[in-house]
């Protein structure tokens, strides 16, 4: 695309003398587009439209991004291009402010922008440099105290990670440039740099260099820059979807590591989780390209690095450039004047890693609010520093092969490179695993506890051969792999991959494919509870919104009133094995719906303990979805069933009552304790419906851990004696406990259900197990099969509601984006399905001729 020139502007004013100033400039800019430019621009717009749909379909990262920031970026980029070049940077800054207000609201957003403006303003006070620096340090320190909670501030906690992200590093770079840069910069450039549009939705942001940010702005043909941006966005989305694949299908918790094969899976999956950072960085830099910022490529084939230096140059080059600019070069230049080159390089590299280690903790502080000081973290950086120093000294003495202009690459060299790549990949997987471990003991116990298997050696060799082959191929084809044609092909392949995954969720795909792919579209990644997965630095820091409730609320658009149910106001501790219960006589509004409990803490009306003549009672036990979290009192599925059956006079022999004993997070063990307390059986139920959920096993592990750590016996005597026979050591870590418990969890849950059955039968009622997933849950058939087999195995009749939501848009069945409990429509669906199942079993609930026989 040709840029507007003075001559074209002059020619427009010559033809239209009434046009002067901005209108002439604008018309000249538009007139400067050739037909081919317009065609290419059209292609970019088409790509943008497609990518916007993809971002939305895959719910990329947070609702704040895919609902607000992404459409703003797409629309803004088109408008930006239509503006004359000199207006674009100001427009970008303005758009960045708008994005902040859109995500944070007017009040919080204005605070964020205001504090930022003060910081930028301090940099430009008409005072000596040292005065400005001192003032900045003072304000920074004050903000630090406030971030640590030592000072009260009038803005909310959600703003901190974004404020930190915008200023914690960029201010350092900016002050450095301010000191040395001789060019005058405009306020638009300054605001565009600090409030940088995509930053509001991505707390972990590349450390942008101010000089590069300015220099790269439309330094090439605009359409070429946009094309590159589109490529990077596609690449970023592919990385993010691949990250979800790893997260959903490959990650395991340390407690699940039993064999060397598990250990390999754990290590590789952990390292692969870094794809999320790489994906986000590609996406961010790609978005900035759409506004003309031709920023450097990042994370280029980083999994195929062949040495530590190579990795350092590939992985996060924004960090590398930042360190090189403010630490490495100044140190090296100072040292090299009085010391040997080798000594200077070693000292400068060590200092870079010491600063990197500190800065990672500093970043953790601004994003998460606490300091990160762990032995594994310190050792990880020390080890990396040592390796990089050794690598640098080697390169100083032997030189580094630079591929870019060398005439050809021999196959032998490429094979050697491939072997080095495989070695480096292995080492990084081990190091990453170490880094992810909260303690050295946790790491050694996991590695030491892995049972070797011969087959794993085959897997290891096969895996390494694949990595080595990929490394060798990339090395061998280095000259051609980055050609424009190949880049376009790669982008098209990436788009096809995204389209393929999305296509797998549509009705055209087989059900088995749909169940897998639909999880990839789900940004919530609910396969496992976050607390059982041991995840590393980046998993925590890149998902900062998950660990900052207020930011999560802002990002998900979650209203302030939509609090979680499990608070002290709604729940209370008990001294028995139930651990907690719902408070009696609650009368609150929860998720904008009335929520009341009776004098026994049941989400139900008051019932006389003595059953009326001819009344058939069904007790319903389960977790929060049985309680009816997020729906009104009269919309819970048990209430709907009761109302419907009564209206239909479905039971000729007498009335029917459904008693709701649902309590959030209750495991089968707590249900057993509830039954043992006679709170249920005192009402003489005829049938007890036990609702089970896919999270049953995980919750049971957590519950047993809780009881073990508290030194309390389980409510199931048999399960308790099995635990005793396992000789659990006091003071064992949660992971170690989980590892011991995992092989026995099916047995332990089965024992709980056997005792539940006995308890119910003892009181003359009949137990029925109902498997019910919540909407948008992963429908893991294995989990359902296991739970149904366990309950059936102990003699409980079962009902399988795995497919209760099939044929319905599950999105429309949840309370909200941030709350996946079934909504009123979901409860209605469940109620209808349960009634259908009950009608198919007339002997069970007395819906029909045998009603009088079962009623007591």
């Amino acid at each position, binding site marked *: 695309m040709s840029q507007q020139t003075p001559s074209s502007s002059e020619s427009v004013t010559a033809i239209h003398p009434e046009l002067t100033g901005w209108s002439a400039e604008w018309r000249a800019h538009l007139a400067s587009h050739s037909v081919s430019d317009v065609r290419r621009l059209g292609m970019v717009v088409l790509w943008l439209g497609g990518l916007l749909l993809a971002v939305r379909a895959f719910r990329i990262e947070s609702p704040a991004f895919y609902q607000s920031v992404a459409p703003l970026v797409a629309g803004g980029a088109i408008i930006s291009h239509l503006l004359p070049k000199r207006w674009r940077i100001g427009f970008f800054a303005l758009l960045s402010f708008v994005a902040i207000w859109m995500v944070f609201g007017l009040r919080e957003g204005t605070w964020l922008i205001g504090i930022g403006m003060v910081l930028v303003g301090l940099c430009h006070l008409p005072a000596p440099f040292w005065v400005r620096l001192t003032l900045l340090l003072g304000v920074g320190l004050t903000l630090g105290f406030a971030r640590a909670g030592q000072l009260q501030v009038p803005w909310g906690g959600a703003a901190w990670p974004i404020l930190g992200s915008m200023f914690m590093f960029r201010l350092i770079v900016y002050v*450095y440039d301010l*000191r*040395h840069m001789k060019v005058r910069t405009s306020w638009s450039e300054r605001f565009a740099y600090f409030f940088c549009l995509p930053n509001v939705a991505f707390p972990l942001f590349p450390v942008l260099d101010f*000089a*590069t940010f300015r*220099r790269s702005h439309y330094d090439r043909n605009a359409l070429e820059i946009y094309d590159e941006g589109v490529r990077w966005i596609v690449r970023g989305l592919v990385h993010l979807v691949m990250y979800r694949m790893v997260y959903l299908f490959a990650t395991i918790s340390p407690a699940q590591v039993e064999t060397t094969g598990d250990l390999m899976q754990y290590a590789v999956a952990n390292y692969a989780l870094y794809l999320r950072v790489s994906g986000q960085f590609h996406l961010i830099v790609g978005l900035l390209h759409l506004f003309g910022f031709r920023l*450097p490529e990042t994370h280029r084939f980083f999994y195929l690095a062949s040495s530590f*230096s190579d990795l350092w*140059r590939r992985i996060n080059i924004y960090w590398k450039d930042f360190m*090189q*600019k403010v630490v*490495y*070069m*100044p140190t*090296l*230049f*100072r040292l*090299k004047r009085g010391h040997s*080159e080798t000594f200077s*390089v070693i000292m400068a590299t060590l200092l870079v890693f010491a600063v990197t280690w500190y800065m990672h903790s500093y970043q953790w502080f601004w994003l998460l609010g606490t300091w990160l000081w762990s032995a594994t973290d310190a050792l990880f950086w020390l080890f990396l520093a040592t390796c990089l120093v050794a690598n*640098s000294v080697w*390169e*100083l003495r032997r*030189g*580094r092969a*630079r*591929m*870019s*202009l*060398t*005439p050809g690459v021999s196959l032998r060299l490429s094979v050697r490179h491939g072997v080095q790549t495989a070695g480096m990949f292995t080492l990084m997987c081990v190091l990453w695993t170490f880094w992810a471990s909260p303690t050295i003991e946790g790491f050694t116990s996991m590695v030491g506890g892995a049972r070797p298997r011969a087959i794993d050696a085959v897997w290891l060799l096969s895996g390494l051969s694949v990595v080595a082959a990929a490394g060798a191929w990339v090395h061998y084809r280095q000259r051609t792999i980055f050609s424009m044609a190949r880049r376009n092909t790669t982008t098209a392949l990436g788009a096809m991959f995204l389209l393929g995954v999305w296509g797998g969720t549509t009705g055209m795909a087989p059900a088995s494919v749909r169940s897998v792919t639909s999880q990839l579209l789900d940004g919530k990644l609910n396969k496992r509870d976050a607390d059982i997965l041991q995840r590393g630095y980046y998993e925590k820091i890149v998902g900062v919104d998950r660990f900052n409730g207020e930011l999560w609320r802002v990002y998900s658009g979650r209203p302030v009133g939509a609090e979680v149910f499990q608070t002290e106001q709604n729940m209370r501790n008990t001294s028995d094995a139930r651990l907690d219960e719902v408070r009696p006589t609650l009368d609150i509004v929860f998720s904008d719906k009335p929520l009341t409990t009776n004098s026994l803490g049941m989400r139900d009306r008051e019932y006389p303990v003595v059953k009326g003549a001819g009344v058939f009672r069904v007790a319903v036990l389960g977790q929060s979805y049985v309680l009816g979290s997020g729906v009104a009192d009269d919309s819970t599925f048990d209430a709907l069933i009761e109302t419907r059956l009564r209206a239909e006079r479905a039971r000729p022999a007498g009335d029917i009552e459904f008693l709701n004993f649902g309590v959030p997070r209750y495991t089968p063990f707590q249900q057993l304790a509830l039954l043992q307390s006679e709170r249920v059986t005192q009402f003489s139920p005829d049938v007890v419906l036990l609702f089970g959920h896919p999270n049953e096993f995980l919750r049971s592990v957590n519950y047993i851990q809780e009881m073990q750590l508290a030194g309390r016996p389980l409510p199931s005597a048999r399960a308790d004696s099995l635990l005793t026979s396992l000789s659990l050591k006091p003071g064992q870590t949660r992971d170690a406990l989980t590892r011991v418990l995992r092989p026995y969890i099916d047995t332990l849950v089965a024992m709980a259900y056997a005792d539940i059955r006995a308890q119910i039968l003892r009181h003359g009622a009949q137990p029925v197990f109902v498997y019910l997933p919540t909407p948008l849950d992963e429908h893991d058939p294995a989990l359902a099969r296991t739970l149904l087999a366990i309950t059936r195995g102990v003699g409980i009749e079962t009902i399988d509601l795995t497919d209760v939501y099939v044929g319905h848009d599950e999105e429309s069945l949840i309370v909200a984006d941030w709350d996946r409990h079934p909504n009123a429509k979901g409860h209605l669906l469940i109620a209808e399905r349960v009634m259908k199942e009950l009608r198919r079993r007339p002997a069970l609930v007395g819906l029909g001729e045998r009603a009088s026989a079962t009623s007591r």
Partner: protein
Amino acid sequence: MSEPIAATVKAYILDAFLPGADAAELTDDTPLISEGILDSLATVRLVTFLEEHYNIEVAAYEANADNLDSITLIANLVRAKLPV
């Protein structure tokens, strides 16, 4: 020091960092930093060479892409530092 600065710099880069490379492929505008020809170590070595060869002093903040990303930029930097 009578030879043109660009030619001297090019010869040094080819000799020090690109042995065996086709000299014709390294033009005065080939991006040196973004193409990976000049990494941090190579940058320091190049600066040391420039300082010694032209008897000039280059500051740490000047060792960046603004000044060193191409032979043309390097020549401009040296020229600006040489006594008139």
